[in-house]
């Protein structure tokens, strides 16, 4: 099974690396860069949603923070883009920490969804009324291309490799996390909070930590976006986007890191296929989200993995005796 996973990963990476050899036109490649940026954000979000079981409708806000902070730090303070990206991520992490501690300690999942939604709207409002600092409705243009020392990422091909390279790092980190004891702890929280607490797990704090990690993913994605498009406007970070990110997580499969990348890429590329989907993006997202939740709650990756397991029947222990009888005994024992 490990060999299969390794082979699959190697083929996946090779395929992504080979894309620019076949997709020659800048226009299409550009959409793949954007898809990569969104996939990075959704990978982080899937840790929060899929593994810790918390909903956020405000990750557009963290995305915006990364993009605007990188913009302001490079254009106004003349920081190198890499330094600005790290600084933006640190600031975003602190904001997520400040937001997460009261929200995740006190609130239910539903309250968290509403509170993060309001956070996203608030960030957007600040961008619009920010005057010369944020450029209002028209935003800020003219960001320098991303660079690491003397290496400048100019153009679509260079940005394609930059962005998907970062996606790869993000996926490696996320997979490492979910496969480790720390991932076990997150899923335990999703499974039963009180049960998790009885094992010494500080449920509220673990949720805050993963909330911060997912916000950092969003911030880095925002920084990459600002340097790639060399333009940021409030419209790029609206509430509709936050909803779309959630749709991507659920479409891919809510417990799957790879699913996040697949979901993110698919939905971001969708509008390119037809004009209709460009005009009615929110509607299409809504239909996809509803359809997934109703018919494929395990997501695309779950569906494929399920089919795979049916194709290759594994040797399993005989089915346990009907648990109903055991429950009956429990009731009997209590008489």
């Amino acid at each position: 099974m490990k060999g299969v996973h390794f082979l699959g990963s190697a083929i996946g990476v090779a395929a992504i690396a080979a894309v620019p050899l076949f997709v020659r036109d800048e226009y299409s490649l550009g959409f793949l860069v954007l898809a990569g940026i969104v996939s990075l954000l959704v990978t982080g979000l899937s840790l929060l949603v899929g593994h810790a079981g918390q909903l956020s409708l405000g990750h557009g806000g963290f995305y915006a923070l990364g993009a605007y902070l990188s913009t302001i730090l490079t254009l106004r303070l003349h920081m190198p883009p890499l330094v600005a990206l790290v600084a933006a991520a640190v600031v975003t992490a602190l904001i997520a920490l400040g937001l997460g501690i009261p929200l995740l300690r006190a609130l239910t999942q539903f309250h968290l969804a509403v509170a993060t939604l309001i956070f996203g709207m608030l960030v957007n409002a600040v961008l619009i009324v920010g005057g010369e600092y944020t450029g209002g409705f028209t935003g800020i243009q003219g960001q320098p291309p991303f660079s690491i020392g003397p290496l400048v990422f100019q153009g679509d091909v260079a940005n394609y490799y930059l962005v998907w390279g970062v996606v790869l790092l993000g996926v490696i980190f996320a997979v490492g996390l979910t496969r480790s004891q720390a991932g076990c702890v997150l899923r335990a929280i999703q499974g039963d909070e009180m049960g998790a607490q009885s094992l010494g797990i500080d449920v509220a704090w673990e949720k805050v930590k993963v909330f911060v990690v997912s916000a950092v993913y969003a911030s880095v994605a925002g920084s990459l976006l600002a340097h790639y498009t060399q333009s940021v406007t409030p419209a790029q970070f609206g509430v509709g986007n936050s909803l779309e990110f959630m749709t991507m997580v659920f479409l891919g499969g809510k417990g799957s890191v790879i699913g996040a990348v697949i979901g993110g890429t698919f939905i971001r590329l969708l509008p390119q296929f037809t004009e209709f989907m460009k005009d009615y993006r929110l509607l299409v997202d809504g239909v996809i989200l509803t359809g997934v939740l109703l018919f494929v709650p395990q997501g695309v990756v779950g569906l494929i993995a399920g089919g795979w397991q049916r194709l290759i029947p594994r040797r399993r222990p005989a089915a346990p005796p009907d648990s109903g009888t055991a429950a009956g005994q429990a009731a009997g024992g209590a008489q």
Partner: protein
Amino acid sequence: MNAPMLEVRGVSRNFGGLPAVHNLSFTVLPGQLKGLIGPNGAGKTTCINLITGALSVSAGEIWFAGGKITGLPLHRTARLGIGRTFQLLRIFQEMTVLENVMAGCHRWAELGMLQAALHLPGARGKEKAIRETALEQIEFLGLGHRLSMAAGALPVGEQRLLEIARALAGRPRLLLLDEPAAGLNDAERARLGLLLRSLVGRGLSLLLIEHNMDLVMSVSDEIVVLNYGEKLAEGSPHEVRNLQTVVSAYLGEAGHA
């Protein structure tokens, strides 16, 4: 010299003015198995919830291993070394048996997120220790053949054993068991009794809530009898069995199970 592992001092808890537990005091000594019995609604589960901090006390104090733990939340008491199981099971249904028990190792083997995700030095050794401890406890509870099965797919009796394995993986000093034998058949129950005695033999302190009188009478060093939230009697199984008050309040109506 034998300072108590757990000391409950005059603890009360009211629910909307009604006392669920009233002025309750008892101790569990190191390496002692204490039974806690009483009719339905006597306040046994409330008592475990109060000790572990899942519920807060209305009055009184709780001491564990020489320190006052009154008011500490559930995860903090667990951190200190109080393991527990639940009458209404709280296993992680979608995780495998192995993963459930590995999560139980959190108390002594917490890995930082960065450390875990990036396989930083120390992470590998810790993961290995976690896995070995988990496997050991699973074998101990006789669930070795269920390793990669989803916990929710186990029969109820085995889910109870899984909760015990999960709690033991945290290497607790005191273990509170809330009706561990419910859902077990006679053979499994007998095996559970041996298993509990072997845990006590290793120095673990146990507080056992159990409805099955044969089990609780045969494994307990001492028994506390609760009725309407108050301590009705305390003593060896032999003493408790022969107390007229206990017989009339409890054993008389439920003792023949």
